[in-house]
């Protein structure tokens, strides 16, 4: 297997975009490609991550449409649909293509334009991730699954509404330092929790989870350009290496899991990624976790192995996961505040690690990071991809 480098990474602004899905994806892709000194080299393959373009944007065959848009003919094109884990899945597919020697230059682009439909349709669309017969017909939505998970998890480990609010406040604060973030708004504990007006400011979405415990519905795209190690010195002065990837699947219906507070696929995917990278959780300088709901950042920080089970919220409360803390989590603002265009998210997490490892993260830059960890989480933990990136070779 060849070592694989990321030689370009970019993201569009996330939010509600005037741009079409293909325009978003073309902008991110073009920005990632122009970072590399490609010269006459051609892109061999384009791997696209997307969950709902055929439904929401009336565009199927998205990868070939992107090749067309960017004039990358005759590059191979394929779209990966793996729910909200599509992004990191597509990076993995690109990694495999380069590592195997089958392709040299692979462009991976994740994109989603969810605001083309109204919020009720977006909620409905995302709820297609639930089990078609055992969950969906009951009106189960992703927030509902997260609410049921949160109630159990909080009772078991003593996590409180304040802890959830701390995740939201931290990630909103980080997003204020990220020009591409969707939500640029500070939150106050008073305003979302303690004031008598908080119930209206921050109503329950799926109790115990409230409005500001949930990520927004966003449009956006992110892209990375992959190349084999031997080519990197020609292409870039600041290569980032894909050190490890792990992936695992769990039951589709959440109720079938032996302990519904455990995210087994997160644990296994992470272990596999660490094994492949030859690293341990303590080696990681920063992490992007899949905080579609605040509770998930806490739960995942434990399952990945950063903190002992039941201690994630304590590390959070001590400030260990803030920028400047022992292990900054979601420096980009996370899904919570950077936004969550589902197909783009996994690629965008990896792009954030690249920005950080190259020292290009501006005001949110973590000091001298060596290894970054990204966790992309599909369904309600059904499909999980963990990716570890390392600075240089």
């Amino acid at each position, binding site marked *: 297997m060849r070592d694989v480098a990321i030689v370009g990474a970019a993201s569009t602004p996330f939010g509600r975009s005037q741009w079409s899905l293909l325009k978003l994806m073309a902008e991110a892709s073009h920005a990632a490609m122009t970072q590399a000194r490609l010269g006459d080299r051609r892109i061999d393959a384009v791997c696209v991550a997307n969950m709902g373009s055929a439904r929401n944007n009336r565009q199927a065959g998205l990868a070939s449409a992107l090749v067309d848009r960017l004039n990358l003919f005759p590059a191979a094109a394929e779209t990966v649909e793996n729910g909200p884990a599509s992004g990191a899945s597509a990076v993995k597919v690109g990694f495999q293509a380069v590592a195997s020697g089958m392709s040299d230059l692979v462009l991976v682009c994740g994109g989603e334009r969810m605001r083309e439909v109204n919020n009720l349709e977006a*909620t409905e669309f995302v709820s297609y991730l639930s089990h078609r017969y055992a969950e969906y017909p009951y009106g189960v939505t992703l927030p509902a699954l997260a609410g049921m998970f949160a109630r159990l998890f909080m009772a078991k480990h003593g996590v409180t509404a304040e802890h959830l609010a701390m995740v939201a406040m931290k990630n909103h604060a980080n997003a204020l330092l990220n020009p591409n973030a969707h939500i640029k708004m500070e939150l106050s504990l008073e*305003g979302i929790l303690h004031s008598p007006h908080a*119930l209206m400011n921050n109503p329950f979405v799926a109790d115990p989870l409230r409005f500001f415990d949930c990520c927004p519905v966003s449009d956006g795209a992110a892209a990375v350009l992959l190349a084999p190690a031997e080519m990197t010195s020609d292409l870039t002065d600041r290569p980032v290496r894909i050190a490890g990837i792990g992936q695992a699947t769990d039951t589709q219906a959440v109720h079938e899991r032996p302990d519904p507070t455990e995210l087994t696929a997160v644990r296994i995917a992470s272990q596999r990624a660490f094994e492949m990278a030859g690293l341990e959780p303590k080696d990681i300088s920063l992490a992007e976790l899949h905080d579609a709901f605040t509770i998930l950042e806490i739960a995942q920080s434990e399952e990945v192995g950063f903190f002992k089970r039941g201690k994630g919220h304590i590390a959070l409360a001590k400030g260990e996961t803030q920028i400047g803390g022992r292990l900054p989590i979601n420096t980009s603002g996370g899904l919570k505040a950077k936004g969550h265009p589902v197909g783009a998210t996994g690629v965008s997490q990896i792009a954030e690690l690249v920005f950080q490892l190259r020292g290009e993260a501006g005001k949110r830059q973590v000091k001298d990071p060596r290894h970054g960890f990204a966790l992309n989480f599909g369904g309600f933990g059904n499909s999980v991809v963990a990716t570890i990136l390392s600075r240089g070779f």
Partner: protein
Amino acid sequence: MIDELEAMLRPPALEMAPYPPKFITLASGEVMVVRQASIDEVDTLLEVIDPLKHLHRDFYDIVSARLYSELLGWKVHRVRNEYCLVGVIDGVLAGIVNGRMFDERHGISYHTLALKRGLRVGAHLFAAKMEHHIEYLGEDEVWIVAESPIGHRRWMIEYPLATKFEIQHELGGAPSWVLTRETYFKAKPRLVVGTRPVPQDLLATSRPIKKPDLRTMLVQVEDTLEARL
């Protein structure tokens, strides 16, 4: 002096109780004063609304155009029993709602325009409007129609509103929906918040109204986080 012809055009007005100002601590920690606007403030409001008449997004164009004409109509005495409430954050206009008394028992909700998005300003102000009709103007019901289907559905389910299809709402279009005194008081603990009285120095910050920066306002309006997964 108003001449005789002008007097004929001016509608007779009902006695209208004032809306006592309140303040709300928003999610961001910012404090929004909600208070009644006075006629001398209409010109400022119109200047803010004006560019939004051309924004074809989230029904801003139609809501702004209609609100503009309603407020102008109020200023030049062509709409009867109208009132306008504003939300003001640090002196800057964040949202506008208006309506009028149809008669002593029935209120008509006109429009809700949020200029600052993502903080539920529109939801707070719509609630304040319902509060004004039922609690201060002392009416039994408020007739409501919406420009936005999603907005309409949200209020219909949230409060919930009942149909009043025998009434043709004066904004035209669809037949009316209604919020009754009974549904209002049931929904009040969930939906109507605010603290009174507003300290004098805080209230003073809300006047004169400062216009929001147009660019910031448009970015806010373009991109809202109202929708969640």
